């Protein structure tokens, strides 16, 4: 008896088995995720050297941190980081407040046509980013837009594509696209709240406002943190909207956001530099996301 049990235990304790089960995840994870990141880091430590002739024969050599030095002294790149940070500081809270407000509204007893509203608010997320940007582009273009046309008749001449406004015009597209997506996550968290807690609060005399702000919001804090982290990462990777609007405005440069700067370097066959910028974007995202998690968990603990 004892013997068989031991043998069985040993078999259960086979150290290789779990990895066998993990393989379907590990293989694509390593190939599609870790390997490219590793390769980008390797590339970021290299540079191209050429010998002989006008075009020369290229060889790739180790360059240490030369590309990083270049990036840190690249004012255009630094500006692009600062630009998306400014964007994030404004856009992420605004979008989160809208998403939270919509989710709370949908969650109230008195909400009507819940299913329809949920779908309608979520719908923009289903539209590909490029299409959304194209659509908004037509609404922004002063020579084509029905909005500027109408506003112009009452004497307001908004310049959606102007130097001072373009960043916020982009923020508007991003908010429009992602507010519904974040709302769904928050709404799902609200749905999962235990009914007895809410009932107890109601019996204790909490009105709908109190119920929302003092009971529901603290309880769904993890969902809020999650959506905020995703939004922060999304902000740093801002690409599609400005890249599409670039074709109709003079105020988006080839280094407008960090990812556009990296893309521009890659298109110019400057792969090492593009890789360097990508790595830096990833590092900044990590710092911000984990910094945010750190701060919020401290709040929760306090």
């Amino acid at each position, binding site marked *: 008896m004892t013997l068989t049990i031991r043998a069985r235990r040993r078999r259960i304790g086979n150290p290789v088995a779990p990895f066998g089960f993990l393989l379907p995840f590990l293989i694509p994870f390593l190939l599609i995720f870790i390997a*490219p990141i590793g390769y980008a880091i390797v590339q970021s430590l290299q540079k191209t050297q050429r010998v002989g002739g*006008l*075009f*020369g024969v*290229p060889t790739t050599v180790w360059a240490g941190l030369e590309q990083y030095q270049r990036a840190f002294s690249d004012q255009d790149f630094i500006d692009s980081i600062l630009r998306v940070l400014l964007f994030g500081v404004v856009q992420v809270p605004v979008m989160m407040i809208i998403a939270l407000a919509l989710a709370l509204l949908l969650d109230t007893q008195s909400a009507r046509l819940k299913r329809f509203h949920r779908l309608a608010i979520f719908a923009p997320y289903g539209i590909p980013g490029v299409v959304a940007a194209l659509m908004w582009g037509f609404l922004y273009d002063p020579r084509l837009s029905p909005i500027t046309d109408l506003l112009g008749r009452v004497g307001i001449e908004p310049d959606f594509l102007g130097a001072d406004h373009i960043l916020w015009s982009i923020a508007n597209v991003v908010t429009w696209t992602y507010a519904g997506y974040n709302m769904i996550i928050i709404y799902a968290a609200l749905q999962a709240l235990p009914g007895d807690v809410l009932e107890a609060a109601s019996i204790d005399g909490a009105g709908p406002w109190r119920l929302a702000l003092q009971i529901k919001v603290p309880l769904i804090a993890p969902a809020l943190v999650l959506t905020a982290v995703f939004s922060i990462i999304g902000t740093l990777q801002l690409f599609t909207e400005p890249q*599409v609007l670039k074709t*109709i405005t003079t105020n988006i440069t*080839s280094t407008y956001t960090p990812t556009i700067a990296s893309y521009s370097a890659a298109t110019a066959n400057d792969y090492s530099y593009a890789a360097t910028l990508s790595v830096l974007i990833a590092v900044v995202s990590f710092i911000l996301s984990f910094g945010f998690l750190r701060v919020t968990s401290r709040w929760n603990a306090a």
Partner: protein
Amino acid sequence: MKQRSTLRRLSAAAVAAAIAAVALAGCSSAGTPSSTISADCAPSTGKVDLTFWNWGTGMDKAVDLWNKKNPDIQVTLKTVPNGNAGTYQNLFNGLKANTAPDLAPIEYDTVASFRLVNGLKDISSCTGMSDASSKFVDWTWSQVSDGKAVYGVPQDIGPLGLYYRKDIFDKAGLPAPTTWQEYYDDAVALKAINPDYEITHFSQTDPNWFTGLLWQNGAKLFGTEGDQWKVTIDSDKSKQVADYWQKMIDEKLVSTDLQGFSEALSKAWDTDKVLTWISAPWGWSTIRDGAPDTSGKWAVAPIPQWKEGDTANGNWGGSSTAVLATSKHPYEAAKFALWLNSDPEAVSILIKETGIYPASKAAADDPSLTGGVDFYGGQKIFDVFKTAATQVNTDFIWGPTMTDTYRFLADGIAASLAGNGTLGQALTETQTKTVDSITAQGLSVAK
């Protein structure tokens, strides 16, 4: 360089965005194709299959004709997005991964970028290439050849001319301007007649249009000195052009919020707001399609000159058909490229079906290019371009990192249009940054 509408341009941006996602994820394997200085170009044995990437429509008709005539060399055509909308990037990646096609269109300004990655076959020793240069408009050969090696066969060109609203000029009593000074005076005069009139649009998204204007003034953006590059983007000749247009921008004589090939621009043409376009022969259909209400009101004149009586010209757009370095059948590929761009029947198809203006000398007399064009009041507009093609400065060469140079220039032009600088400063910045970009590629720049 073919005509594009906003939608197409925007969708090009979309494709670029999608490709970027892949590019950013860290594409491309290590290793560059080996140098292609080998001069032999021997035919392959047996039946050969070639792949040919091309953008735009109509190329299939020419390829079909070739395939019918050459059962042993079959060409498979794949239609891809415009070069700068992602195809060049795909070609660069394909060269590394050995998945590039045998043939692709390479615009003149991009030939050097491909040479930088040793991406093109030298086809100078292939059959028929030794005397091919005489078949093409003179200056095009220097765009594809360094004098010895040949990296492509010229296909189309874009010598500049002035498209203008003849009806409005006539009404104002103005003849077509022959000098830039006259062009400026006309802009002022037209503005005085109607404050809505703008002589032309100055686009941020067409830096290659602006380099065409620099080219016309004899400005050389690049040169070589032995094994070193010379960068002279901010030369006095360039500055003269920049200052001229800066004045036009400062005095609000040109529209600064219209991008090339945009819906908004078409609308501005169609509603008599923008009155001229300095453009290439391929631009004729861009106006026709964008501004149908102005049919019969446009005409084409030679490009205004910097000096009275001069006949200098520059070029905007145009491409060559090149054999990629990874091709296993350079002999057959070169044979096809040469046929496609010099055989009268093939070029005739290209003119009619793809809308190009040919680099082939003989094709300038193709029936499609000798008649009057209704949209231009029956004017034989291609006669203007036929002359223009022979007047393009021949010694203009492109830098090895034009993608970068163009984007620096576009960023600088954008700043100037937004009132945050001048075109002169744009040139200076482009100069500095281009030197850095060339140096970053491991090349040396002469001081």
